[in-house]
């Protein structure tokens, strides 16, 4: 018997192959005529001005930080959810502690204006 994750491994190979096969077909049949004008950056016909790879708006970074906190919480919540009914009252009390920790962090982020789009 192949282990479940062995099967996932085989599917991973096919997942990598799929786009390669899909791109191999146009490689054979599609024309390939590179040109200077054709390869310019498309910005609706205007000449592109200035750098594109710049330091970007910090708003996005704040959301990302809050996201990381919540995502880690999620990883803890899932195993807890599976065991919820087996653990009985312990899990029930723990739920409020978990959610309380989560909400304190959420409230802080909200209060500090990390969730405001400026």
């Amino acid at each position, binding site marked *: 018997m192949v282990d479940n994750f062995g099967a996932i491994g085989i599917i991973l190979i096919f997942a990598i192959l799929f786009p390669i096969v899909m791109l191999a077909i146009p490689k054979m049949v*599609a024309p390939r005529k590179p040109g200077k004008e054709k390869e310019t950056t498309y910005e609706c016909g205007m000449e592109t001005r200035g750098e594109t790879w710049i330091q970007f708006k910090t708003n996005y970074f704040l959301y990302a930080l809050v996201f990381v906190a919540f995502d880690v919480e999620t990883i803890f*919540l899932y195993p807890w959810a599976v065991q919820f009914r087996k653990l009985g009252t312990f899990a*029930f009390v723990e739920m409020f502690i978990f959610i309380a920790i989560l909400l304190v962090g959420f409230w802080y982020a909200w209060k500090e204006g990390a969730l405001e789009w400026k």
Partner: protein
Amino acid sequence: MPQYGSGLFVSIAHLIRGLFGGTTVTADVVMTVINSLIIWALIALAALSLILLERKVAGWMQLRTGPNRLGPRGWFQTVADAMKLLGKEDIFPAAADKWVFGLAPMFVIGLSVMVMAVIPYGKGMVPVDLNVGIFYLLAVSALTTIPFFMAGWGSNNKFALLGGMRAVAQMISYEIPLVFSLLGVVMITQTFKMSAIVNAQSHVWFILLQPLGFVVYTIAATAETNRAPFDLVEGESELTAGAFTEYTGMRWALFFLGEYANLFIVSAVAATVFLGGWQGPFLPGWIWFAIKVLFMVFLFLWFRWTFPRLRVDQLMHFGWKVLLPLSVANILLTGVGIYIYQLIYPAIGG
């Protein structure tokens, strides 16, 4: 209730297994390879038919005819489009970061193939029935953010950069309500296994036990697939095509394929987790599954052609300040509900 003919594909799989000695390693490998090829076909089929469906439904909702020239009622339109795309030149902009630019669409479609491996298409029809199924599904589909950002950054185009940045902000914001909305179901079923979640719904579908979870999931899934009213990532009227602006030919088509594969995936997950998956009377299980997926797809199409696009601050506000508290409330309600239920019927709990 009995289902007729639901074992058709299972019997075929059993027959093929028999050729390679039943439960040997060879049989498992051969079955997985066949399953992978079926997933390939399913992605292509889903994309071709869903694009046609989308255009037809859009036409119907806007009192137009939609595509109606190629074949009967225009059924071959998407096939013709796909053939055309295969013959288009693959242009790499001179300013782009070639590797990041080239790899992004390949990641999108590869991740779709990986996710489709754990979806239960019918009774006994799960390509890989992982014991951490739903967790794996969320983890792998969460990675979809990365190729969008790769496309946005690698293109070295200002529209693409804005699109990529928006994609990251939007997808991570709606990731959390999405993940939390499925937590209630895990608490009830005590399992991550997709087939076990479907089996647990033989008496009652979880949409009735988790109505709030279903609503939050549906909204968050719309945002995760970057569909209107949350299509700021593409935002045709403001960003040309967002992160996909510089892509041409098959590389662009891979993004499109991935988009519709993801639409299929989120619909299939909703059907599995909330609508009872393959459960249903008389008809074979995989037909029930297909009906439920099509219902969910139709719902997403309906959203797209009904609601206007949100503004970016409204989008973030809605995700963090409305959906997230709602999904946390759903966890609390489910926990209290299960606890009271177990107090009343202690024999069933545990």
